[in-house]
């Protein structure tokens, strides 16, 4: 099942399978999945709980490993990378947006956004420049010294988005990014993500249960019992 697109694919998945073990029992989660995602695409992955959508997202983001199949992202076959190489690749190539923001509570918004840059050779002044730019993209320049606990849920998620884009990765992966937000905040976040796709040509892969969130995506794929059932 391959996406027909005029853009070359940034993500190319072939014959991907993943299962978990519980004691002696093997539980298949994904079986033989193949698809491409074009650069600049905003893809929503939907499906019931346990359908394997978060697992698929984790595999694409390089935070879990497949049993079988290949994942090529931006020309790099990440399934062949070692753990350290994967960590390095993640730091530079993928931005993460989580349902519960996953900000470090003892660090300010500025310091949270700065985190991925600490793994780059950038100097302090250069890092500052990048962080200020990322926080201004999400409209939180005036809150950079606030701790997560001093921000609303929507603002925290915007800080998390700033953290995701601060290294200027090609791909953003978002796991239920609006799942913990009220409708107004969720709308803001979705608009922001949409803006990132259109103005910065980011590729976003979003897992969601929320049909309203999925509507903002260019493309919706459904996962059912580990298989892509509908495009």
């Amino acid at each position, binding site marked *: 099942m391959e996406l027909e697109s005029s853009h070359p694919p940034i993500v190319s998945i072939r014959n991907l399978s993943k299962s978990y073990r519980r004691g002696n029992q093997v539980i298949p989660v994904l079986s033989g999945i193949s698809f491409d995602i074009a650069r600049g695409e905003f893809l929503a992955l939907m499906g019931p709980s346990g359908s394997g959508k978060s697992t698929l997202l984790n595999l694409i983001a390089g935070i879990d490993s497949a049993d079988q199949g290949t994942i090529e992202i931006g020309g790099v076959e990440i399934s062949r990378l070692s753990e350290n190489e994967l960590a390095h690749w993640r730091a530079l190539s993928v931005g993460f947006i989580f*349902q519960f923001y996953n900000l470090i509570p003892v660090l300010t918004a500025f*310091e949270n956004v700065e985190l991925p840059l*600490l*793994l780059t050779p950038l100097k302090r002044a250069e890092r500052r420049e990048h962080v200020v730019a990322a926080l201004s993209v999400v409209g939180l320049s005036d809150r950079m010294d606030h701790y997560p606990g001093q921000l609303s849920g929507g603002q925290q998620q915007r800080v998390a988005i700033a953290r995701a884009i601060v290294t200027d990765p090609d791909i953003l992966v978002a796991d239920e990014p609006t799942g913990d937000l009220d409708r107004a905040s969720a709308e803001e976040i979705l608009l922001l993500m949409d803006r990132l796709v259109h103005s910065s040509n980011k590729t976003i892969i979003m897992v969601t249960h929320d049909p309203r969130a999925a509507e903002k995506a260019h493309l919706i794929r459904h996962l059912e019992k580990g298989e892509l059932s509908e495009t």
Partner: protein
Amino acid sequence: MFFLKYILRNLFRHRLRSILTVVGVAVAVLAFGLLRTLVGLWYSGAEHASATRLITRNAISLIFPLPVSYLERIRAVPGVTEVSYGNWFGGIYIDEKHFFANHAVEPKSYLDLYPEFVLSPKEKNDFLLDRKSCIVGARLAKTYGWKIGDLINLKGTIFPGQWEFVLRGIYHGAERSTEERVLLFHWDYLNESVRKTTPLRADQVGFYIIGVKSPDKTSEVALTVDSLFKNSLAETLTETEKAFHLSFVSMTEAIMVAIQVVSYMVIAIIMVVAANTMAMTARERIGEYATLKTLGFKSGHLAFLVFGESIALSLLGGILGAVLTFPASRWIEVELAQYFPYFSVSKETLALEVLSALLVGVVSGIFPTWRGATIRIADGLRRIG
């Protein structure tokens, strides 16, 4: 720099828990330091003993006396510079609770052999001239508010009766470790009284103190002295002052070993407590560690964070405990002067205190560090929410 900042902020994230852990480590380190000091003090008499003094006593036991007539024969041994003698008097002041050592000694030779007992020339002269007089250490005088000219009454136990002495001098120790809680009086005064009351016990001494020219002569002199009285009714055992002190210490060796074991147990217990705190901390932050790993941080970074926090927490407690050792030892020295007249914490003990805190940090950090560094990202992220 970032990691240090992160560690410091994490340190007091759960303020109460961290403070309690730091205080726990501090108290344990303090107890460890004080117990070690106590053990050290027990051996300090031996450590500060003179290398040129020998003690001669009855070979059977210290409780058996030696004839005073041995004096001239010992004095004639080559290498001997001075000989003094005395008896453990065992007198009680007021009651048994007010214990201090009191000896009947031959005053001139004794003071010559113990230059660390410093008296003014006048006080020394007054003491030597007055057979019913005594001298006491400065700490002892301070404890009971004694002044020169005061009458001191002791109740005899080994030598029954009421004994009255006139205080003619208060000596000061040449060094901080010099014993300043001793009362010394004239052996002649004791012997005269004994001669009247129990003549069979007269002209006998409990010990001889022998001054030797140089430390390398001690064994030769000791052997010669003991050979002089071989096969006599009162054979002698001559040993260095250090060995003499150690023979007393060995009587309480089991207690000292027990105290040492307790000092290590205290550290072991706090190690378990700190390990529990760190394990709890790591468990709570698994989601954060997974997030950091997701962002590209490696296991080494995570290990540094967790281990650094464990070390910082323990070191903070260790340093606090080491600092508290000074006022605590001072307090013991002032308030419990009767038992611990000299309670000074050595540099080695302070270093051991900090090292033991470091050890607590290392051991308590091992499991949480391993856990934090090896967590699977997907598993860790599932813990959030």
